[in-house]
């Protein structure tokens, strides 16, 4: 009997370590990480503070480089390349959702969500349609012209999610996306992410140390002291 097919990894981390220099001493943030991110992942990185969750997300998101090992994206080894030269991959393949939302305060919600499409040179008319659709999907259709400062935390995070998914990335990374939200709003944000995962076919990788959020992940990777200590599928 044939084995069930395993989706190909979008991202592969092979023997990845990341050390930081603090004065004269080196502090290991991640040690010997081997992990595949698949096209259908809704993966949560769980672990206490300082376990290496953010560092691992930064490496997957190509905004940091490993001290050892390699990070592969779609079969391409990105490690030898400079972070500047990876801007194109970040622009086309990766979406980010930040704990503090990180919307640009001088741009409206519409403009914030539109921004990644401008980087991709999407024509104006198409941009408008895509932005309106994305904001409709996250429930912000009536807030197009508002500035981020005029939105609640939950609304800002929804706008941030719309900005992350609008360019149809292969993978969306979210570092503690619910940490700045109350528990009810946090759960609703996670439900939204899960719905978009199903609708849009985008892999979501997010970090949390909240057990209720962790329980919503379809796959859980537990980190402790910079090492993967457990991987489970829910």
């Amino acid at each position: 009997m044939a084995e069930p097919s395993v989706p190909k990894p979008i991202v592969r981390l092979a023997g990845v370590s990341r050390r930081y220099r603090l004065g004269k001493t080196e502090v290991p943030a991640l040690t010997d990480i081997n992990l595949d991110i698949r096209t259908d992942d809704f993966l949560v990185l769980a672990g206490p503070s300082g376990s290496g969750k953010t560092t691992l997300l930064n490496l997957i998101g190509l905004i940091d480089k490993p001290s050892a090992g390699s990070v592969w994206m779609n079969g391409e080894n990105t490690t030898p390349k400079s972070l500047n030269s990876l801007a194109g991959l970040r622009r086309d393949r990766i979406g980010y959702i930040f704990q503090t939302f990180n919307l640009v305060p001088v741009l409206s919600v519409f403009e914030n969500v539109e921004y990644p499409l401008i980087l991709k040179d999407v024509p104006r008319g198409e941009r408008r349609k895509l932005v309106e659709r994305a904001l409709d999907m996250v429930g912000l259709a009536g807030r197009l012209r508002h500035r981020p400062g005029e939105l609640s935390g939950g609304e800002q995070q929804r706008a941030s999610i719309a900005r992350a998914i609008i360019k149809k990335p292969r993978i969306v990374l979210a570092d503690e996306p619910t940490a700045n939200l109350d528990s009810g709003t946090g759960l609703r944000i996670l439900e939204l992410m899960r719905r978009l995962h199903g609708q849009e076919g985008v892999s979501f990788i997010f970090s949390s140390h909240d057990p209720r959020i962790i329980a919503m992940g379809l796959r859980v990777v537990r980190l402790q002291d910079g090492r993967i200590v457990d991987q489970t599928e829910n």
Partner: protein
Amino acid sequence: MMFFKLGFRNLFRQKRRTAISLAVVIFGAVSLLLALGHSRYIDWGLRESTIHSETGHLQVFNADYFRREEKTVLEFGLEAQAEIRRELDRMPEVSLVLARIDLMGLLSNGDKSVACMGQGLEPDREMRLRGMFRMSGEPFNAFLAHRGDPYVIALGRRLAESLTAKDGDYLTFMTTTASGALNALDLKVIGTFRSASPDYEERAVMIPLATAQELMRTSKVKNLVVTLKSTDRTDALFDKISEVARRKGYPVVLKKWPERAVYYKQVKQFYSELTGFLSAILIIIVFFATSNTIMMSVAERTREIGTLLSLGTTRGQTLKTLFFEGALIGSLGGLLGCALAYGASTLINSFNILLAPAPGMTTGYPLMIRNEMGFYFPVFAAFVAVAMLSAVLPALRITRLKIVDALSHI
């Protein structure tokens, strides 16, 4: 377009800080334009007054005048001047031709003798030459009023005081003739004149040209002074007159007015250096003020810049926004500065303010600003360029920024 929009809106994040930067640019532009305008006025005024009181646009000398040393007075004076004058008068670009003789001698009232120097000149033509640049205590009308009497003299105010001479008094003027002998004439005082220089006022005299020639027993003149209808035509007429002189075989040499205007050149150089120094200071102030604004703005937006970089924005696109912010501050400040400078200069000119006399001078000079669009645009462009350049330091910070550090910046 988004990067320009971002740059524009960033200016309104910290309105007070942007306003201060704009104020510095405006202040810099206004100061520089007023300084340049005043410097241009000094340049223009001194140039035209030099041309219309001393040098004319061109001067015609005997060909040997600058080559050899005179053993006797007017040895290398200009002969056949009447013929040359006729040639010059025929040229449509020439406004006026006049002749002069330099004088040195002793002036006596019977009790006291004073060494003096001055000119034998043609009063009616001198008056036309000076036009709007007539000296205070104008002596030429007095000469014209005594047209029938050639034996008259006008004195510098201080010289008249020194000899206690007043109008109608007779003084004896003694000098050497062209052949080296002594000669003297009694001349009637018909007026006094003032000058910007007290030293000149103490020694200066003027007498009619024909009287000077009689006194010196010569038909020569020192030179011919030629004024043109436009200063801009000086070079062209220099070439034209030189060609005519060569063709006709006149033994003459021509000098352009800048070669004969030593004082003008010194003052122009002084003001150029002063304005250059002032410009450098103002530009440095504007550079650091604008740079500080953008630097502070970048520091406050570090996390945001990290976010934009993580979304795939290139560093070049981020730098574009910064340079645009600088250009906006420079353009807006430069435009307002130009408009304010124009208004301020018009206002200042309307007050006819007189500044204190410079050292060695007896009269003050007007605080006037010359508004020439020719330097408004370079000043505007310079401030835009400086404001854009001021984004270089903040831009260097961005090029060194690590995305993960920027994202964790508080």
